[in-house]
């Protein structure tokens, strides 16, 4: 059927709440307002205020409460409006959600799911345009998934809810409106593996989330040059499915990592390190990274577009890397 990323995510929430009454949604404006990005539109009328709970602007409290409720047997879906506000709840996420199981010697699980919108591209300036999923992927004890397709938007949530450990779902703001075909019986998908979205043998384009569309467009442009690019969608940043992207690099001998996050200390660095550690002698050229410019994202459109990875920068990087064929 024809649907959008937003509607696929909403269907996932409805499906989960119908399956399990331990599931409830909590977050700012998720009820009466229907969700800042309208993902939870209509759910209040269907499930009532007990299970679709609007919260005051108290991120630390309601994210902490979500973690506490999970500690005590519930399966909460906590929506933090954007990753930018999650910084106010970082203490609860890092020191409680990610740590309690290990520190309690395996006694207390925290089966909470926290959804956040992430990324730039909507001209809402620096404080609302961060991409920190790579940052969160540094923390042992939580899982980080980045749905970029309709199937993943529809299928990742239930798998995350069933998982006994905290799962953070990052939804890039620019993806909500993408529309396309989705199987009527589309259901849960795995959240452990990356997936090759396009086969190729000349260069591997490794990316995730919001930059997948630009990367696919870049692959098309390169094909016109006779360069067959392989596109790897990571889907999960922690754990990182390195087998899939290493296999790709061993085949193409060239790697471009595309990541909207900042370059220094970013997940793109981690991916490059793993390639250098495991596939050095398959590299015909150094790993190239196309990342967000290391600036607070500027408000004006032209600056914002210049600051985030786009198709032409990806194409240029791949061409320069693979060099002129004899």
């Amino acid at each position, binding site marked *: 059927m024809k649907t959008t990323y937003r509607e696929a995510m909403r269907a996932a929430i409805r499906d989960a709440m119908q399956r399990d009454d331990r599931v409830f949604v909590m977050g700012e404006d998720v009820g009466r307002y229907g969700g800042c990005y309208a993902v939870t539109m209509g759910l209040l009328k269907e499930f009532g205020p007990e299970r679709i709970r609007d919260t005051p602007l108290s991120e630390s409290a309601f994210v902490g409460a979500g973690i506490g409720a999970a500690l005590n047997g519930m399966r909460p879906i906590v929506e933090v409006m954007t990753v930018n506000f999650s910084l106010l709840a970082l203490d609860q996420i890092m020191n409680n959600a990610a740590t309690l199981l290990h520190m309690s010697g395996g006694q207390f699980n925290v089966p909470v799911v926290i959804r956040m919108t992430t990324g730039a591209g909507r001209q809402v300036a620096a404080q609302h345009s961060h991409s920190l999923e790579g940052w969160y992927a540094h923390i042992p004890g939580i899982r980080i998934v980045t749905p970029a397709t309709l199937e993943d938007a529809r299928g990742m949530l239930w798998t995350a809810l069933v998982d006994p450990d905290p799962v953070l779902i990052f939804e890039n703001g620019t993806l909500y409106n993408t529309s396309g075909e989705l199987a009527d019986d589309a259901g849960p998908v795995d959240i452990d593996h990356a997936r090759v979205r396009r086969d190729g043998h000349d260069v591997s384009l490794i990316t995730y989330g919001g930059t997948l569309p630009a990367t696919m467009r870049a692959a098309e442009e390169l094909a016109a040059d006779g360069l067959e690019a392989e596109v790897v969608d990571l889907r999960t940043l922690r754990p990182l499915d390195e087998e899939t992207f290493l296999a790709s690099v061993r085949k193409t*001998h060239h790697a471009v990592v595309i990541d909207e996050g900042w370059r220094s200390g970013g997940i793109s660095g981690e991916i490059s390190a793993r390639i250098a550690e495991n596939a*050095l*002698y*398959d*590299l*015909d*050229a150094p790993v190239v990274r196309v990342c967000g410019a290391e600036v607070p994202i500027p408000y004006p459109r032209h600056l914002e577009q210049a600051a985030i990875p786009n198709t032409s920068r990806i194409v240029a990087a791949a061409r*320069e*890397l693979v*060099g*002129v*064929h*004899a």
Partner: protein
Amino acid sequence: MPSLGADMDEGTLLEWLVKPGDVVHRGDVVAVVDTAKAAMDVEIFQDGVIEKLIAEPGTTLPVGAPLAVIAGEGAVEAPAAPAAVEVPAVAPPSEIAPVVESPLVRHRAHELGVDLATIVGTGPGGVITRADVDAHAPAPPPPTKPIPAKPGRAAAIPTQGRAPVSPFARRRAAELGVDLNAVQGTGPDGAITADDVERAAAKPETAPAEPVVAKVAPAAPVVPDMQAKARAMRQAIGQLMARSKREIPHYYLSATIDLTVATDWLHQTNVDRPLSSRLVHAVLLLKASARAIHKVPEMNGFWVNDEFVPGDGVHLGVAISLRQGGLIAPAIHHADTLSLDELMDHLRDLVSRARAGRLKQSEMDPTITITNLGDQGVDSVYGVIYPPQVALVGFGKVAERPWADGGMLGVRPCVTATLAADHRASDGHRGGLYLAAIDSLLQKPEEL
């Protein structure tokens, strides 16, 4: 000495609040100890009578060191730490049971992997103290040897002026037996890619596979096993010289230069100079050689891929003999632009660092090399060029020589300058001009 905080290793006893004979009860404050943070009270954790004060006020002691002897139940000597609780821990069987009182000492021994039975306590009554345990701690294991590079893969050292080679290309070259020196790079900034190697492998008359030779003896750090290092260096120099002789068509020129003016100028300059800033002949010869390049630039650069690549400045390689044998020629960058004093400082610094094995990789890129073996009493030096450079200047001994001038025979201080040059890059005529330029520069030392 009690542990009074997370990051406390030692404490300084400020004062005793009790004296021998005093009766003490659990919880009494018996002393004051100074720590990094502040002065803290020291409590006693059992009842008894102070028998003897061991530690003197003002002394600094590690945590666990005994401070006093308390006669209490069973006149047991106990540091301020509690009496050992008899614990059914499985103690290793040993003939003479070591005299250990504080669990602290037992814990320390366990921590450091020390067998208490092997220690004779130095504490009062033969008690083993914490310091005894520390003294017996086994030396840390020797650092493991670095794993040698996997055999069979050409451990190529990127040679100066040569294009970079991708790891995959290097692997293919090893697999196909292709000599990377003979491969033309088409990758980014001339890099050699796997395709280049495979194309080279496909061409019939590929050059015989030769081991890639280290360019100049690597800056061998002066490490304890001198012989191994000297042998390795000798080997590297040997290979380099052999290749130089094999590949470079040398031609040789020499000229004897009158140093009267230069020597007088040198003495006048040094008269009122402290030892630390006196100039030596060598610095005049180096500066002249560098400035002379401006007249004959084709002496200064490299022969790469059958063509002359000019140096991006006059980087003068100075041949320095390492005391245990072996020779190394690091570069003084832009030597032509330095004043004599600056050149002197560079020279002194370079010699001392070369002999201490602390040369930097960035200094191993001379564009022409000067060898000044004259000091060793040799009249003239016919050197071997360091590939891929194209020239080597040698200076013999500065000595009094018979000199004919205007029909009269006199005696003058002279030096024999020689040039060994690559005939592919220059010819004898140009070499002669170069030596003549050095000579004329040395006649006006004040302008050097």
